[in-house]
């Protein structure tokens, strides 16, 4: 029995009809993809929602193409699912964290985008243009720092060392399986005077925290509730991007975040990728990827989800420019730690295990 509901089919035709009516406007914008479809897979959290609003919708309006979005899961869940479905990809474009792109590229599941069809790349900081052996196109920078309670800290903490002064039961840490946990080990190493790779020392120091940890922040929603009810003081390394709404309103949420710590903060490039056997048309998909790098889009997205834009000409509002939570390209040089993917691949498994065993 096949029971696909026909309603979606109906909506598509009516959308296409609508697009035909407004064809002159599209023609002026340059590209016309009316009647074409793109299937997009993205995160389920608010970063995914922002993509729908700030990228997919304007793209539809501009080109007449239709973006069908699936917002489910975290990067690792996406990778697990894509791996299991092997050759039969349902999606044309996927946005995900760097680790995921590297994993999938390693499996040979990704196509290499044609850089000539992505004119906006020329404005992108050369460090962040491509990755995963040319299979990933840079998208935005995911950044991690310290999250703190604005009631406890009148001024933003200046070092990860503050985590060791937290009261018992008022500290949170990133879960072992997140890249943020590796960052935390790295930051601890630097705090102890090393270069970050001195993990034995770092783990010995981290072990002191064990009794003070209330929870490992698997779920940002829970953390935000714990801060709101004044049950947490500090924690990290964690991404302020999860708390865009809360950080804008510290009186209510008690939440603050800082990148300005002695040991530096962490930046991870996120990618847009296209699976090898994508159902959609090459040109539309490239146009979409190119659009994610548009100077206006990058500015709007940076503000919406507190990610760092990689387009050097990103157009940001004054508020966004002043926001301490958004890392601008020029701020990246001095204090940002951008891990080498090979380094991460080398230490990952061992660090995850040791982290788990020392702390839980």
């Amino acid at each position: 029995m096949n029971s696909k509901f026909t309603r979606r089919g109906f909506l598509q035709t009516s959308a296409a009809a609508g697009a035909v009516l407004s064809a002159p406007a599209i023609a002026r914008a340059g590209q016309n993809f009316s009647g074409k479809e793109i299937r997009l897979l993205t995160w389920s959290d608010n970063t995914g929602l922002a993509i729908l609003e700030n990228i997919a919708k304007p793209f539809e309006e501009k080109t007449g193409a239709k973006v069908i979005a699936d917002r489910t899961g975290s990067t690792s869940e996406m990778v697990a699912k894509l791996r299991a479905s092997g050759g039969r990809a349902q999606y044309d474009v996927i946005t995900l964290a760097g680790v995921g792109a590297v994993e999938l590229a390693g499996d040979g599941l990704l196509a290499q985008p044609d850089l000539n069809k992505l004119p906006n790349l020329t404005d992108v900081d050369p460090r962040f243009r491509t990755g995963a052996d040319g299979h990933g196109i840079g998208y935005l920078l995911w950044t991690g720092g310290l999250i703190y309670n604005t009631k406890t800290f009148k001024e933003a903490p200046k070092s990860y060392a503050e985590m060791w002064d937290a009261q018992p039961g008022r500290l949170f840490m990133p879960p072992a399986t997140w890249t943020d946990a590796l960052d935390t080990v790295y930051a601890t190493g630097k705090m102890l005077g090393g270069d970050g790779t001195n993990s034995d020392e770092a783990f010995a120091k981290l072990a002191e925290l064990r009794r003070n940890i209330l929870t490992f922040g698997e779920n940002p929603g829970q953390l935000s509730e714990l801060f709101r009810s004044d049950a947490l003081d500090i924690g990290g390394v964690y991404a302020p991007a999860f708390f865009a709404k809360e950080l804008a309103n510290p009186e209510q949420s008690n939440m603050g975040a800082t990148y300005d710590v002695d040991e530096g903060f962490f930046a991870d490039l996120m990618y847009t990728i296209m699976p090898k056997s994508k159902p959609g048309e090459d040109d539309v998909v490239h146009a979409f990827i190119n659009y994610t790098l548009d100077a206006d889009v990058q500015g709007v997205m940076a503000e919406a989800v507190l990610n760092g834009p990689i387009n050097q000409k990103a157009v940001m509002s004054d508020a966004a420019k002043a926001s301490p939570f958004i890392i601008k390209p020029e701020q990246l040089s001095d204090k940002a730690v951008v891990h080498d993917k090979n380094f991460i691949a080398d230490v990952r498994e061992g660090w995850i295990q040791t982290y788990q065993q020392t702390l839980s």
Partner: protein
Amino acid sequence: MSNSTLTRKQALAFAAPAFIAILPFFVACLYILRFSLSGEQGRIEGFSIDAYRNLMTPFFGRSVWLTLRLAFFATVIALMMAVPLAFLLTTLKRPVARRTLTVIILLPMILNLLVQAYGWILLLGPSGALNTVLRNLGIIDRPLFLLFNETGVLLGLIQTSLPLAVFPIVSAVRAISQEHLEAASSLGASNWRIFRDVTLPLLRPALLGAASICFAFNASAFAVPLLLGGRRVQMMGVAIRDMISPLFNWSGAAAAGMILIVMTLFLMIFSAWLVRLTTEKTKG
């Protein structure tokens, strides 16, 4: 003696549809078994027992012990509440009251665990309702940590497995014949006495069924330890989820899954045997 109205052939015919329905699951089981013996972590290729060998660490051992312990206690406590609930459910006369109670007991199965965990944080979190009240009354001056540790996980496991325990027992309670109880009561037996000597023995098969279903369910739980354990309680379900993603060690996850299933089966067979032993003794 045959207490059956069915011939062997008929019995097979009766069982066949259910076997067809569960067949895909057994295919999946075999697939997982095969995966656990794979030489590669991410796909099935070659044979190797490395996946099992890599699990033989004290850390994993502790996780196994923790899983069994929590699942056991949660099951016992859930059963202790399920029996009175089943009595209450069968005693209530008004259909409205009965239906309300039924729905309440089913609630934990309906609501997204993420949302339920949020409810628990508001109630039992370090600054939740309970801690605030206790602190205002001057009973405590440091918050009680009821969540993000084993207590929290135990609570969550009891909650999620309670409906699984109640309903099989309800069916069995309904089946208890009134004469038994009336006879015992007319002989002047006390309530506790009737409960111990008449009700419990009659309910024993249902209790065992409920217990094994709860135990199995609890032992493989992963959302509860993840959300209410704050990830500090490493039950096997969590370890397996981590191996599937983001570690992508699928053969390891399959091996851990096989270990979990073998252990649970062993315990269930053991308890079934134990019960048969005791019932046969009382009969003989």
